[in-house]
């Protein structure tokens, strides 16, 4: 993601194509290119490196990897007005491993610089449980400053079109908990008394759904300290 790779140029759901946009990752300029905002991703392609009709050198930001975006007007930190984006490097990291790297020497140097930068920004990375760390700053600097508000707006639209799965905060399914299986292997076994919460709840009959909800409430990842909490 943060490296220049061969990206496919979006053809469907394109909401904005803005030419003459400089891209920066951290403080490293990647050159002049074209910014394409589609319903699926934000894609930037290097102008000088068109490699075909359907793909080009560039990078792609999926909406879930975009933590926030903003219009920056602070010229003391950066000489021009631009669209400022914070990318979750953890999410983009997974993408990067899947993508074959096709780099020129120059790009390879830029990529190394980026890695150093993201490592520097990531000093507080602690354990794999942590969701913190690895934030990457991306800037899009269009020649035409009047396009800034539209770029900002179209990325907003793209974000709204791409929520996390099972992440709708509208309450259309009543109390159903639809996100129980978010990564934790739950061992629900109430019938043989292994599941400690049942002991506290004589006479209370739980639906499967309710059981799953309770399991989540009482801790998806049970460990000793959790048990201690409950049993006291």
């Amino acid at each position, binding site marked *: 993601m943060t490296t220049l790779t061969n990206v496919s140029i979006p053809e469907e759901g394109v909401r904005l194509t803005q030419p003459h946009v400089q891209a920066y990752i951290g403080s490293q300029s990647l050159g002049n290119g074209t910014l394409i905002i589609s319903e699926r991703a934000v894609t930037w392609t290097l102008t000088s490196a068109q490699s075909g009709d359907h793909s080009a050198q560039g990078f792609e930001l999926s909406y879930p990897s975009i933590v926030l975006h903003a219009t920056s007007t602070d010229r003391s930190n950066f000489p021009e007005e631009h669209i400022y984006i914070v990318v979750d490097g953890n999410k983009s990291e997974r993408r990067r491993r899947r993508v074959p790297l096709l780099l020129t020497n120059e790009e390879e140097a830029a990529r190394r610089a980026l890695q150093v930068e993201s490592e520097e920004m990531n000093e507080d990375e602690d354990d794999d449980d942590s969701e913190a760390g690895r934030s990457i700053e991306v800037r899009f600097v269009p020649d035409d400053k009047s396009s800034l508000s539209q770029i900002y707006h179209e990325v907003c639209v793209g974000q709204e079109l791409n929520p996390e799965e099972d992440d709708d905060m509208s309450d259309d399914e009543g109390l159903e*908990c639809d996100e129980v299986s978010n990564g934790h292997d739950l061992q629900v076994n109430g019938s043989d008394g292994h599941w400690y919460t049942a002991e506290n709840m004589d006479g209370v009959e739980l639906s499967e759904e309710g059981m799953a*909800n309770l399991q989540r*409430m009482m801790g998806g990842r049970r460990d000793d300290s959790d048990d201690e909490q409950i049993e006291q």
Partner: protein
Amino acid sequence: MATEKKEAPVLNATVEEPLDLLRLSLEERVYVKMRSDRELRGRLHAFDQHLNMVLSNVEEVVTTREVDEESYEEVYRQTKRTVPMLFVRGDAVILVSPPIRAS
């Protein structure tokens, strides 16, 4: 599931599923265990099925763990702060319970 149906006293006639239990904690102080070694104690004012919550008079404790490179001993450091009114996004919540343990 509580397959044995017996005449034991029922906690509350309307308790059919876990979120009903949490409903009993509305306006009460609760303990919330969060991802990234964070714990919250505060008064629960609202929640939904995602375990999004609003808590007031919140105390947050963040525990960071460091390993001494020579002795390999783990050192735990706790940082506390208070927040008057806090929305908590449910996807980082691990556990909600009445604040049984005094600390």
